[in-house]
């Protein structure tokens, strides 16, 4: 249920894996007309309940992170549930277990502070909307909150990774 996004392949090889952020106040659950999305006491926002989901895609449109996807073959939304079958019995989610670069990791805040130079934060601002998530991202120490703006696909570019520009260096 994880989405691996290539940001702007023409300009960069950068990728961003998008897991469900397990928001403290999940917008997907709030907008669901069928009350099909539940959050368990441990803060994990579950995928849609099959007996309830009507496949309306409200959650797909509402999630600021673009996480829920409508699956036409089952007429139901599916999304990451933090591998609840694993995490509920003390295992780690599969994505973080197998990630070969450690970009995805499931561990304590103390372990992050001990082993990583970045800062783990979970506060987001989407325009006027403040979102607090269970999942953290690592950011430079100077960053307190991630302000998410809007970029137009195909218009935003960077030359930062242009090999021709690097070669012209001297």
């Amino acid at each position, binding site marked *: 249920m994880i989405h691996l996004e290539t940001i702007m392949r023409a300009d960069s090889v950068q*990728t961003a894996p998008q897991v469900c952020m397990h928001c403290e106040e999940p917008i997907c659950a709030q907008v669901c007309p069928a009350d099909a999305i539940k959050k368990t006491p441990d803060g994990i926002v579950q995928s849609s309940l099959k007996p309830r989901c009507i496949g309306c895609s409200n959650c797909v449109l509402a999630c600021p992170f673009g996480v829920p996807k409508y699956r036409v073959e089952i007429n139901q939304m599916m999304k990451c549930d933090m591998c609840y079958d694993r995490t509920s019995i003390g295992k780690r989610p599969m994505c973080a*277990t*197998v990630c070969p*670069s*450690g970009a995805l990791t499931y561990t304590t805040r103390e372990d992050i502070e001990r082993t990583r130079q970045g800062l783990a934060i979970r506060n987001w601002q989407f325009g006027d909307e403040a979102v607090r998530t269970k999942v953290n991202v690592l950011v430079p120490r100077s960053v307190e909150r991630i302000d998410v703006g809007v970029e137009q696909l195909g218009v935003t570019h960077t030359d930062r990774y242009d090999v021709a520009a690097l*070669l012209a260096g001297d």
Partner: protein
Amino acid sequence: MAKLPVDVVVLVDQFGPRLNRIPATGWNADIEPDRLVKTHCCFCGQQCGIQLKVKGNRVIGFEPWEDFPFNQGRLCPKGVKRYMQDEHPDRLKSPLMRKEGTGFVPVSWEEAMDKVASEICRIQQTFGNDAFALIGGASLTNEKAYLMGKFARVAVRTANIDYNGRLCMVSAGVASKKVFGLDRSANPWSDIPKAKVILAAGSNVAECSPITTHYFWQARENGAKIIILDPRMTPIARNADLYIPVRSGGDIGVFNGMLNVMIERGWIDRAFLAQHTTGWEQVEEIVRTYTPEYASKVAGVPASMIVRAAEIWGPAETSFLLHARGLEHHSKGVQNCMAAMNLVLATGRIGREGCGYAMITGQGNGQGGREHGQKCDQLPGGRDIENPEHRKYVAGIWGVPEESIPKKGLTFVPILEAIHAGKIKGMLSICCNPMVSLPNTSWVREALEKLEFYCTIDFFLSEAGRYADVVLAGSLMEEDEGTTTNVEGRVIHHRKAVDPPADALVDWKIICDLAARLGAGDKFSYNSPAQIFEELRVASKGGPNDYYGITWERIDHEQGVFWPCPSLDHPGTPRLYEGGRFAHPDGKAHMQPVEWRPAAEEPDVDYPVILTTGRVVSQYLSGSQTRRIGALVDQYPQPLCEIHPLLAKRFGINEGDFVKVESRRGSVIVRAAVVKTIRPDTVFVPYHWPLERAANNMTVRDIDPMSNIPEYKICAVRVSKAPEPEDSISELEVQAGGIR
């Protein structure tokens, strides 16, 4: 033999590649496996630990093996989806024999093996023993690699055995033996996070050895600086402290140029050089001519980058240098590696914690597979087939007269040259798909068509297998048991999970049966791979690659054992060269002066662009396995030509256009990916696909004179817009060589 028995479209229809998307028992969360088998990935040299879920005689899934120290549960897409090879519709379940006009028909083992044995005898009686060649592979276990070497010298009695690692690790191997005295990574991967500077040349770490990425990032969290050399900005290069977009084949400019600056600034450990090496004087003489300005011309990068690299590498307290095929796949591959080794030795930073050197072995058993005799010049334990004492020792183990062991034979590309010249008439290959992985595909096809007899042992019908007279249904890694040796030199244990399906057989039984039919049954009367390993231990004893102290039990208890391990109470040797003691008889490292020279084929007026070839993370080698797994093909379905916008503009090419990439030897038509993340004088095409999509249609068959590795990483091409292909090949599915 001769042309294909029937049109390739018919063969694809019968034998695939088809995509498997569903596990053996379906997507069913309620099915509990009977057992979890702790084993290792069947793909690359990282040899990640993994557990396979087994129900009955079927592999139905996987579970990470978090306790195996090398990868701690980490994997990559290939390892995660590996089990989709089991219960695959394309799986060969019985031997096949070529039938003109039909394709291939199933036959009994008796008929198939009779045919193979009688053809070997006929060809050898008519044309001489060496007229029959054997090709082994670097994904074979140590047991099977050993078996192939013995099979060649004792049963078939041909000098001409070589293996597909010839296309992979031999440049690093020759260089390492020449300089350090041993062919192995010098350090365990656990030394990487302790290095303050990491330099990686010609290695797309994130895609080709993904687990190694985490080691680099751990070093970075500890404050390390990372230097990457690559004509493309790969994912590891994007995050490097210094990314050097070296021109393909220009690395010597960087290494020699760095040494030039280091000499000037006093960053040379002269005490170490005096005490522990020979040859520095010759090296210094040459690198003094590689001023930053000259080095910059050789490397194709600004001089300031080379100076900056020296400023980072020179004064570092600890450092680790790694390289992979980008450095080695050259007609000067050995020299490229030796120049890199000079950088290590000049600082004395080797043989202690956080100070090291490694070649990142690519194939699953690329390390072990190059140690125990399936190379034309090698005997078990890394012994030398031309050394009288080595021959005598091994002859004693095998129970044969020393004179009966052939002398050194031909390597892989020369074997094909000999086929063209009419000197080799028959071939048997295992674990190899030369129609995708050898350079200059049209020349390879002509060779296969020229053979009077060709037999392959495989579990799918590969593109090369389509040219076979007999195809023997062999085993997947999970259907056999044995050891491999990972990138570090750690010997590990692949446990058997299931039996081969239907009438497929484990590979080692096929070889032993053939040996018996050739009259050598008494020398191949093994009951299990465990027995083969017992013999391998003794055969390697006292050799440079000493496995004598290693047992399967020790491997299981100690999470792998690093060779050399000369006795059962020896702990194994994770780190080599401690105390500056190298593996030559004089105990010193033998530094070699290296002068740059051009590639066999540089760009010119008619073919003005450099083609470099490589890989993607979701595919493995010739794709015979991974192009049959749905999720992996979905991830990167068809080869693209990466081209910089400046170069694309010259030829009027836009993103997504069909383009013809053409060399003097052949061409592909693929879609263009217009990206800034590559040198503007270079295009890149990944090589995992066949037929009209095969990057090796274009590559040269020139080889390094010392290692005989082909020069995959540079040849001259022209690039032009092409009309949308409409031939029967292009209409195949993408995993079979079609285009979308």
